[in-house]
């Protein structure tokens, strides 16, 4: 995988497949990016499990916080890393010991560790670096267009609502959007 530019189909495929996300480096502070992403992904129907050793045992928005990945009793589809690039390698190494193994390692905006990425990819995992799943979901669902962001997608099909309201959009069926890159 070229980690400088991902095809939309790759990102869409990941967001359409994973259901349970472990968020390592989660902060319970409401103004932190990890909290934003956590809340947003929960609202879009993902199960998001916060991981932070300093907060273990507490609950945020009904989700129990765990100290480390291996403490989580349920299978995880994706590990979302909100830690500095230098801290990613041991997190991936720990993810590799999980049974079953997660399918995706996702590193947040500004986070990139090519060695950790190679290790994960060699083990058959998909890797995304320097991206935010909230932003990518918003982009591919067209929601982010409401704040003037270039979604880099064109479509003559209308975007699909998510749930009951009128302001939440879903990723919709895969062929709905013509991805530009």
């Amino acid at each position, binding site marked *: 995988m070229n980690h400088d530019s991902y095809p*939309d189909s790759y990102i869409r495929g990941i967001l359409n497949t994973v259901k349970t996300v472990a968020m390592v480096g989660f902060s319970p502070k409401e*103004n932190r990016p990890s909290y934003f992403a956590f*809340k947003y992904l929960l609202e879009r129907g993902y199960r998001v499990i916060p991981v932070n050793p300093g907060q273990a045992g507490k609950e945020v928005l009904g989700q129990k916080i765990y100290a480390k990945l291996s403490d989580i009793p349920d299978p995880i589809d994706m590990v979302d890393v909100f830690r500095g690039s230098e801290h990613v390698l041991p997190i991936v190494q720990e993810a590799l010991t999980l049974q079953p193994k997660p399918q995706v390692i996702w590193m947040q*905006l500004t986070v990139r560790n090519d060695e950790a990425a190679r290790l994960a990819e060699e083990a058959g995992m998909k890797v995304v670096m320097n991206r935010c799943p909230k932003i990518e979901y918003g982009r591919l669902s067209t929601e982010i*267009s409401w704040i003037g962001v*270039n979604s*880099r997608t064109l479509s003559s099909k*209308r975007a699909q609502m998510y749930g009951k309201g009128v*302001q939440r959009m879903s990723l919709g069926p895969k062929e709905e959007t013509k991805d530009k890159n």
Partner: protein
Amino acid sequence: MADADRIPGFATLSIHAGAKPDPTTGARATPIYQTTSFVFDDVEHAASLFGLQAFGNIYTRIGNPTCAVLEERVAALEGGTAGLAVASGHAAQVIVMHALMMPGDEFVASKKLYGGSINQFNHSYKNFGWNVVWADPDDISTFEKAITPKTKCIFIESIANPGGIVTDIEAIGNIARKAGVPLIVDNTLATPYLCKPIDYGADVVVHSLTKFLGGHGNSIGGLIVDAGSFNWSRDKKYPMLCEPRPEYSGMVLHETFGNFAFAIACRVLGLRDLGPALSPFNAFLILTGIETLPLRMQRHCDNALAVAEWLSKRPEIAWVSYPGLPGNKYNTLAAKYAPKGAGAVFTFGLKGGYDAGVKLVSNVKLFSHLANIGDTRSLIIHPASTTHKQLSDAQKVQAGAGPDVVRLSIGLEDKEDIIADLEEALTA
């Protein structure tokens, strides 16, 4: 699948970028959301929107779905990460500077700019304590010399109004990069059809949509495009972007919004608080204009070149300043930055001076005598007797508005008719 990675061309983006069918009604043309406000899905959703934790619509001063299509459209055409539509080109400039500057800060600006921008920078900005330092695009080293530790950005026009001046964007972009400040480019006269400043190092592009993008002389509007290229957190120079914001309970915009944080800062700190929002109706008219931008712009340029060539052979004319003409001082830069055409706004000098200028604008029948550019109609103005009347003769010459100078904005009429009108008016 092979298609999935295709990047659409400019004409396709001009029509489609940002404009998917309306999600609620399926309307194919972009609806005019002529409403001040939007109901929330529920209380939790409202809180998320106000906290910038969800993407959505609250109140038209902050964002509107019609304006949002325009924002995405222009961002896509410029190759940027995000856009922000505002009430006018001048409002776009103020909002950009507001996100970058603190009282006592400086910015370096090309002295070859639209006269209204020169006024805004020299006078209005004084009240905010934002200090402009002028540099000369004909001598790039003056930009480097003008940089000080207080410099927060460099501001230029790609093709400058009124005199058909082409600015060396890449060279000035390199100076900005070395100085660690963003390059802001006003791309109004070129439009992204002729030139994409982001390809040459612009970090932010601003537009007066009033001109060629809207293109029909019916709506005032402005737009800011974030290139997504600048690192706002490298030092502590840009507190609006890199420090916790008290307006949003300590959120840091750059770390939260990444490569479109500048557009968000302009929206949620600038537009929200200063207030120059674009009307959705204007956004609709401008969007309709943009759908034909590539067709119109090429015709504007082809007509302008024909008129400039014709004028340069006339006995009444002393000089023609159109960069598309061979031998023009900016011809090489025009070939590099605007190879499809050098725009449609230029000046020329009348041998008969002030009186000949007054006579010409009085005699034309197809050209409209007014203070705008970038209309389907051909436009003419004699700056010395109108926009620059209050200046001394020396100041007029300095501003490129000497007594003999006439500015044209060439429209989309048949070029034979445009030329015939000038010929009749010159010889009347």
